[in-house]
């Protein structure tokens, strides 16, 4: 296979962080080269160097054997290098089609845009991904999963020879991942080289030809995927082996109910939802994209109004009209979209961790006890191994997975009795994932009630004591923990009026 790209001795420093330590990397035509590493290992930074976003402090980049400089994204594009960024880079006020073709609009005379062709082309691309999105929909209204698919469609539109995918599946579920992999296979056949970053270990085995592992900004090794076991890759990443634990379902027959939802309705998105959750229980929510799990969580949390229905906390009906009502009633909600709904990106780690619990650290006149806050923040940084130069680092400068950990820390610190976690491990590395599972189990053991919404079925199966399945806004069934995947999929596709 011909070599497309070679990076040699790449160095990159940020204030307080040595992000890349003389990293070398190469990519061949027609291969999928997986790039692995813990959160903050430097994967995204390396790819930003390759796509012209960052300038390396030292090192060379060769494309087709010739040394190149990539002073900006346009230069990288000119070399045939395309990238799907980990942090979505979409223009929320523009439509799907407009986003996909930004910078390359089909033109008519007088600088006019051929909107019809633009939409038709976008439609064709979306169809290639088997995606039912109208190209004229504004992107801001899409769920994060759909935004991710739009980003993928956009990257495909460049017809790059080198395609970098930085955690493209973090927000996707199995069906969409299957579509993506189908596309990847086709691209491979065309001779496109793909750099693939993911924290989902099973994916690596499924699609990659070679695997490169990074740790702490340095290259660990590049190995062929076929004859390297997953456990070895994990060991290279985290420096130790991880035990694979199975779910332990506690006996909750004597436990009191923590949360009850009765007959919740909201337009067509939520239809007559009823369920209950006991203290000490972890209830998993499974479903396909758009099943309405996020909607349900937001409705319970008061982030969006519902038409009718009743919510009881610890057996007493509560009126929740806003998130502050919900939090007062003891309900916490970790959103699936950390950038938009979870973090004040311009503020530091400490402030974000404290965001939901500030009054607890304040004196009567509102003065914040910074020392206590700093101690707590440092605790969580250690507990969740958040990679940051300190609790005063701005969150926007953290790697994606570490940002996610900050949001988790925020809700752990708030110490709610009922916690709704929507895609909590999005973008989190294997080691930290295991740590978070352990934390959730601890919480449940302490009598907290936990809802985990996840598009990763293994995660639901690994954590949930019971599994609720939704389809098209309805709760189609609740299964015992450890249920078979087939059973879940059957409920997840149980459309109304269609006999199961």
């Amino acid at each position: 296979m011909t070599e497309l790209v070679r990076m040699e001795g790449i160095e990159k420093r940020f204030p307080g962080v040595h992000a890349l330590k003389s990293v070398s990397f190469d990519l061949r035509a027609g291969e999928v080269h997986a790039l692995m590493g813990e959160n903050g290992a430097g994967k995204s930074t390396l790819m930003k160097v390759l796509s012209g976003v960052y300038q390396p402090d030292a090192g060379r980049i060769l494309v087709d054997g010739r040394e190149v400089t990539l002073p900006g994204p346009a230069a990288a594009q000119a070399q045939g290098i395309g990238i799907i960024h980990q942090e979505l880079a979409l223009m929320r006020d523009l439509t799907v089609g407009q986003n996909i073709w930004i910078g390359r609009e089909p033109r008519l005379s007088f600088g006019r845009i051929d909107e019809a062709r633009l939409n038709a082309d976008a439609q064709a691309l979306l169809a290639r991904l088997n995606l039912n999105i109208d190209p004229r929909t504004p992107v801001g209204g899409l769920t994060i999963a759909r935004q991710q698919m739009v980003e993928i469609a956009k990257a495909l539109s460049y017809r790059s020879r080198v395609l970098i995918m930085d955690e493209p599946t973090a927000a996707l579920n199995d069906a969409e991942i299957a579509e993506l992999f189908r596309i990847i296979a086709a691209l491979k056949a065309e001779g496109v080289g793909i750099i693939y970053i993911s924290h989902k270990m099973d994916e690596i085995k499924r699609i990659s030809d070679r695997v490169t592992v990074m740790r702490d900004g340095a290259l660990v090794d590049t190995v062929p995927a076929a004859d390297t076991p997953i456990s070895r890759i994990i060991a290279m990443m985290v420096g130790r082996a991880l035990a694979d634990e199975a779910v332990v379902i506690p006996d909750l027959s004597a436990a009191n109910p923590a949360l009850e939802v009765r007959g919740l309705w909201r337009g067509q998105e939520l239809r007559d939802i009823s369920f209950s959750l006991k203290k000490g229980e972890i209830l998993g929510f499974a479903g396909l994209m758009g099943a309405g799990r996020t909607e349900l969580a937001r409705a319970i949390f008061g982030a969006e109004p519902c038409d009718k229905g009743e919510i009881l906390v610890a057996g007493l009906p509560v009126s929740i009209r806003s998130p502050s009502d919900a939090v007062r009633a003891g309900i916490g909600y970790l959103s699936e979209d950390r950038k938009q709904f979870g973090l004040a990106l311009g503020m530091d780690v400490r402030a974000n961790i404290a965001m939901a619990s500030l009054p607890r650290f304040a004196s009567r006149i509102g003065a914040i006890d910074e020392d206590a806050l700093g101690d707590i923040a440092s605790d969580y940084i250690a507990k969740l191994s958040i990679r940051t130069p300190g609790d005063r680092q701005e969150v926007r400068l953290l790697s994606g997975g570490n940002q996610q950990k900050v949001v988790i820390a925020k809700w752990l610190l708030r110490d709610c009795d009922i916690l709704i976690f929507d895609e909590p491990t999005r973008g989190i590395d294997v080691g930290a994932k295991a740590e978070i599972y352990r934390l959730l189990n601890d919480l449940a053991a302490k009598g907290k009630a936990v809802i985990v919404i996840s598009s990763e079925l293994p995660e639901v199966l690994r954590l949930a004591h019971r599994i609720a399945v939704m389809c098209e806004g309805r709760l189609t069934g609740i299964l015992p923990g450890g249920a078979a995947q087939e059973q879940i999929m059957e409920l997840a596709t149980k459309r109304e009026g269609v006999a199961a």
Partner: protein
Amino acid sequence: MTTAKAQPERPAPVRRAGGAHQKLLAFASLIVLVIGFSIASQRFFQIDNILSILQAASVNGVLAVGVTLIIITGGIDLSIGTMMTFCAVITGVVLTWMGAPLLVGVLTAIATGAACGLLSGTLVTKARIPPFIATLGLMLVLKGLSLIVTGTKPIYFNDTPGYTEISTGSLVGLVMPQFPLPNGVLVLFLVAAIVGWILTRTVLGRYTFALGSNEEAVRLSGVNTDRWKIAIYALAGAICGIAGLLISSRLNSAQPALGLGYELEAIAAVVIGGTSLSGGRGTILGTLIGALIMAVLTNGLRVLSVAPEWQTVVTGVIIIVAVYADQLRRRKAA
């Protein structure tokens, strides 16, 4: 958004464009105001007075259309008022002092504005000065330069026959003598139509929205954001030049001290028209409506002979109420 069941083939009605009745509703506040004033005084809804209102809206309207572009990119332009004056002054220099023909004067005004816009655009992009500061600085510089160039005295256009026609003549009146729409209003509608077309149909317009929506994302897409932004500022500047023509033609003079405060009025029209100061959204139609609401309000209260201090109070209240009503409408529509 539509329900999850929505078939992918037929798009949900696009939110931004809105249906025909949506568009009509955007006029609701304006229509209510017009009806209200018409009931309060028979003098209000007379052709002559309606024409005065339109005429009064023309300069502010043109300025507002120009600054709409900049606001959609997420910027702000405080220099438009004094830039308008500066363009008028330079036109006066070229026409009256240098005796150039009318057409040269018109082109000078537009070119001067474009050059000023080029400057502020460059300051914003290349020197990375926040738009507020760059255009505040330019506002002061242009204000001073206008006074310096003219020696603080107005330049009159008495020697340029036809100059006043630009704004106060009426091409429409030649065809329809009973409805002598002043040319200034025609210019406003023309400028609005062209800029509206640019915004919705061209690449420049697309980048205007894109820059305001997520500049970093546009840059990451390989677009030379600086160049486009400068182009947008220059276009807005050229439009200020047109406003300079309109106002100086109306006053038959370039008044060097004029202009301060006009930026706020224009920005107010833009925001009343529903354009968000945080960028990414906005329409020229909205801006036109905003400018008309302000013109109707001022004129109507004067025709009712409301005392000036009460005019101010009532204007403030009505602006808030109109935007509130519009807000409710949008929330319902969404």
